[in-house]
C-alpha cells in the first residue's frame, strides 16, 4: 500500500460522516482501510466519484498483486501481501495448497485421491483446516488423456484446479473442459510463452511463469506478459529440493518478495509459487521423501510462497502443512482469545461437573470439542488468562485462584444455586492452585487430567 496512515487516506474520502459504510466517521473508515479490514467499495459515496475512487484504489492496492482462481465457495485468493514480516501488519491470503493427480491414474484411484484431497479436514480453534486445490499433472502421454482426467477431476470436486504441462496443446485441451472454473495455468516458460500467453488471454485465466532458478528470465517473462495485457501472473522461480540449489531457491524467494514489497518493483510484484513436489524427483522412498517435502513446505510457507504444489497426501504431511500455514497467517493483531465466562456444553443439570480452562482460544476450543465429542454435559469456564495457555498462565500467574473466582463472579454463577455438588474441576496442569482455590472460593476442588482428551475416562472414574 502506498498510503499507510489513516490521515493520508482520509484526504481521499468524502468527509461527510454519513455512516453508510458501517463506520461512524470517515476517519474511522480510513483506519479500517489501512488495516485492510474494509474495502473501499464499502463507501458508496466515494463510488460515485469514479476518478477519486480509482485513484484511492490504486494507492491502497497491496504491494503484491492479489489474484483469484476457481469459482464459487472454494474460490481462492492468491498473493496480496503488504509486509515482509507478519508482525508488521499480518500476512494476507493463506498459502494455497495444491496437491497433484496425474493423467495416467486409473479412474478408481484418481477419484479416491481427488476425494481425499477435497474432503480432508482438521479441527482447529473453532473451524476446520482444509486443502485448496488439485493440480492435474500431464505425464506427457496425450492431450486427450489429460483432457479426460481434468474432466473427471472437475466432476468429482469443486476445488479449483491447476493445469500442469509445458505443452500448450495439452493445456488447451484442459482449458476446453474447465475454463469456466477459472483454473490456474502451469506454466509459461521461455520456450512456450507465445502459445501459453495466447491461452491466458483467450480464456482469461491466471498463469504461472516458470524459470529454472533464473530471475532475469522470470522477470523477462513477467514484463512481457504484462505488456501483452496479462496481469494475473504467478511466479515460479523453480524449487530445487536439496543442496546448494535449495539455498539459492530460498534466496530467490526472499529476493522476489523484497523487490516487490520493500523496493516496490511493480514489474515483479506478483504472488510466488513453491513446488516442494520436486522432492519426488530425487527419491521415491515414501517416508523420507514425504519428510523432505513437508520440510520444504514449512520453509517456503514461512518465506513467502503464496501458492504451493505438493504431492504427498499422507496425514503427517498434510497436518504439518495446514498447521504451518495457520501459524504464519494467523492475524497477530487479534489475540487468540475467547471471551471469558461460563459456558454450557450440552445440557448441564445440577449434577453436571464444572470444568475450568484458560481463555486461550486454542485451549478453549480443544477442551470444548473434547467435551462435546465425549458427550459430556457440563459447564466450562474460560478464565481470563489474557489468551495464555494453562501451563504458561499458571507459571506467569495469569491463571490464579483469584482470576478463577472473578470469572464465576462476573458470570453470576453461584455454585450453591447451579450445582448440587459445590465442586469445581481444575486442569491437571494447574494442580498447584488446588489449596488456594479451596480457600478463595470455599468449594471442593478436584484435579482433572492433564490433557482434556482424557476427561471422558477421568469422568468415569471420578464423577458419579
Amino acid at each position, binding site marked *: 500500500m502506498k498510503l499507510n496512515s489513516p490521515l493520508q487516506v482520509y484526504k481521499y474520502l468524502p468527509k461527510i460522516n454519513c455512516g453508510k459504510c458501517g463506520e461512524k466517521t470517515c476517519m474511522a473508515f480510513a483506519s479500517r482501510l489501512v488495516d485492510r479490514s474494509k474495502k473501499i467499495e464499502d463507501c458508496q459515496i466515494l463510488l460515485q466519484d469514479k476518478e477519486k475512487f480509482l485513484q484511492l484504489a490504486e494507492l491502497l492496492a497491496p504491494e503484491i498483486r492479489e489474484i483469484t482462481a476457481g469459482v464459487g465457495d472454494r474460490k481462492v485468493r492468491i498473493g496480496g501481501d503488504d509486509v515482509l514480516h507478519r508482525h508488521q501488519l499480518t500476512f494476507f491470503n493463506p498459502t494455497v495448497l495444491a496437491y497433484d493427480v496425474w493423467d495416467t491414474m486409473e479412474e478408481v484411484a484418481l477419484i479416491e485421491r481427488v476425494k481425499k484431497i477435497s474432503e480432508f479436514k482438521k479441527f482447529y480453534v473453532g473451524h476446520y483446516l482444509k486443502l485448496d486445490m488439485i493440480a492435474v499433472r*500431464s505425464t506427457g502421454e496425450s492431450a486427450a488423456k489429460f483432457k479426460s482426467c481434468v474432466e473427471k477431476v472437475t466432476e468429482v470436486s469443486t476445488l479449483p484446479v491447476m493445469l500442469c504441462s509445458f505443452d500448450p496443446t495439452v493445456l488447451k485441451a484442459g482449458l476446453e473442459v474447465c475454463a469456466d472454473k477459472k483454473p490456474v495455468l502451469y506454466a509459461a516458460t521461455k520456450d512456450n510463452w507465445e502459445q501459453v500467453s495466447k491461452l491466458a488471454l483467450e480464456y482469461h485465466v491466471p498463469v504461472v511463469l516458470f524459470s529454472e532458478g533464473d530471475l532475469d528470465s522470470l522477470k523477462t517473462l513477467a514484463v512481457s506478459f504484462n505488456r501483452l495485457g496479462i496481469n494475473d501472473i504467478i511466479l515460479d522461480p523453480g524449487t530445487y529440493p536439496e543442496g*546448494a540449489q535449495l539455498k539459492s531457491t530460498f534466496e530467490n524467494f526472499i529476493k522476489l518478495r523484497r523487490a516487490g514489497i520493500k523496493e516496490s518493483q511493480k514489474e515483479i510484484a506478483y504472488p510466488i509459487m513453491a513446488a516442494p513436489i520436486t522432492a519426488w524427483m530425487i527419491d521415491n522412498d515414501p517416508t523420507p521423501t514425504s519428510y523432505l517435502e513437508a*520440510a520444504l513446505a514449512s520453509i517456503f510457507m514461512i518465506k513467502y510462497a503464496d501458492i504451493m504444489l505438493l504431492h504427498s497426501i499422507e496425514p503427517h504431511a498434510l497436518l504439518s502443512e495446514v498447521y504451518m500455514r495457520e501459524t*504464519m497467517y494467523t492475524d497477530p493483531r487479534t489475540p487468540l482469545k475467547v471471551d471469558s465466562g461460563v459456558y454450557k456444553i450440552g445440557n448441564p443439570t445440577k449434577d453436571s461437573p464444572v470444568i475450568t480452562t484458560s481463555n486461550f482460544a486454542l485451549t478453549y476450543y480443544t477442551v470444548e470439542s473434547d467435551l462435546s465429542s465425549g458427550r459430556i454435559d457440563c459447564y466450562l469456564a474460560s478464565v481470563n488468562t489474557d489468551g495464555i495457555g494453562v501451563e504458561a498462565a499458571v507459571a506467569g500467574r495469569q491463571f490464579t485462584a483469584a482470576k478463577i473466582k472473578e470469572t464465576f463472579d462476573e458470570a453470576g454463577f453461584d455454585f450453591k444455586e447451579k450445582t448440587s455438588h459445590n465442586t469445581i474441576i481444575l486442569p491437571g496442569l494447574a494442580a498447584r492452585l488446588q489449596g488456594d482455590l479451596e480457600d478463595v472460593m470455599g468449594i471442593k476442588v478436584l484435579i482433572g487430567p492433564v490433557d482434556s482428551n482424557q476427561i471422558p475416562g477421568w469422568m468415569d472414574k471420578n464423577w458419579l
Partner: protein
Amino acid sequence: MSKELTLAEVIELLNNVEVEALEGVTFEGDIEIEIDESVMNFREEANKLIESRFAVGTVNEWTTAIEEVTIGATPANGGSRGHAVTVGGEKALPYYFDSEMKNPTCVVAIDVFDMPIQLAKSVRTSYEDVMESPSDWAKKVVSEYHADMIALHLISTDPKRKDASASEASKTVEDVLQAVDVPIIISGSGTHKKDPEVLEKAAEVSEGERCLIASANPDNDYERVAAAANKYGHVLLSWTQLEINAQKELNRKLIKHCGVSRDRIVMDPTTAALGYGLDYAYSNVERIRLAGLTGDKELNFPTLSVSSNAWNAREAWMISSPLKEDSNWGEREHRGLIWEAATGFALALAGCELFMMMHPGSAQLLKKITRMLGGSINEEKTDLSNWITKLII
C-alpha cells in the same frame, strides 16, 4: 439544440456511465483514430520477449552483528570438551544473502534427563534402554544420534519429584561430563525456588567447562545464578516468557547489575509448539532478532529454542484424533517427527540458532535442511526442465 461530439467525447461520455460496448451503432463519415504508441510497440514485440534484468538491494538497516557466544571449553581453554560450539556472529536474518553466516546457524542439543520421565511413545523407543542412567543416555545421543551438544535436565531436584539435593544432582553433572566430551547445557527443574541452589552447585563441579547454565529468569534469584556462572566460567541462559520487553530488561540486568559479559549470554524468549502458540513465538523471536540486527544492544544475542516442547502437541503424540470429524491422522511416529522438526524450522528462520530437541529423526532433519540453507551441503544438481513429466512417482 444539438451539439456535435468528437469520438473522444463520445468515449468519455460512455465511460462515465460505465457503458463498455455499444450495439447497433454505425458511424458515418471519416473517423480519425489516434493510436497509443505503446500499443504499436506491443504489436511489434508480441513475438519476442522484452529482455529484462532482475536486481534487488541488500538491507542497510542491519548494522549490528549478533554476539558470538562459545559454549564448551577444550583443554586448550581450560576445559575437557572435545570441541566447542560457537553460535551467533551473523549480521542478517538466518540464511539471508545480505551477509555471510560466520558460524553454523543451527546447533542441536538433545535432551537428557537425570531420571526416567514420561515421554511420547515415538521418543521413548529411542531412549528406553538408557533412561535409568544419565551417562548412558548422554553417550547414546552423542554416539548414535550425533548430537552437537547435550542438554542435561536435573529434574530429580524438583520437590514434586525426587527432591534430590543439589549435591546429588551435581554428581550426575560430573558423571555426564565424564561420559561425553561434547559441550553441555545444564538445566534445573524449572522450580524457581530451588534452581539457583542446584545450578550453583552444578556450575561449581563443572568449573571451566563453559557450560550453558539454564537459566536466569525474572522469577528466580537470577543474581545468584549469574554470579555462579561468572565465578565458574560458564555461559548463561536468559529466559523470559514470550515478551520482548521482559527479555530486554532481564538482559540489561544481567549485563549491568550482574556483570555477565556479552559473549556469555544466550536468550530463550520461550518458544511454543506448532499449532500451540508458535505463531506468537515465531514473531516474538523474529522481532527480537530484527531489533538486535538494527542495533538494539540489549537484544543482539544468540537465541535458543526448546523445540522438544513440540511433543506436548497432541498432534505429535496421540495415536489418533479424539474427534471423529477429523480426517485420519495417520501414523503418530511420522507425525511426531515432522511436528518437532517443523517447529524447529519456523524458529530457525525466525532467529534461533540453538535447539533443544528429543527425536533423533527430527534433529537430523532440522540439521540437514538448515545445513543446506546455510550452504554447507552440496548435493548433486537437480534438473528441473520438464519436471512435470519427470517425477518418480
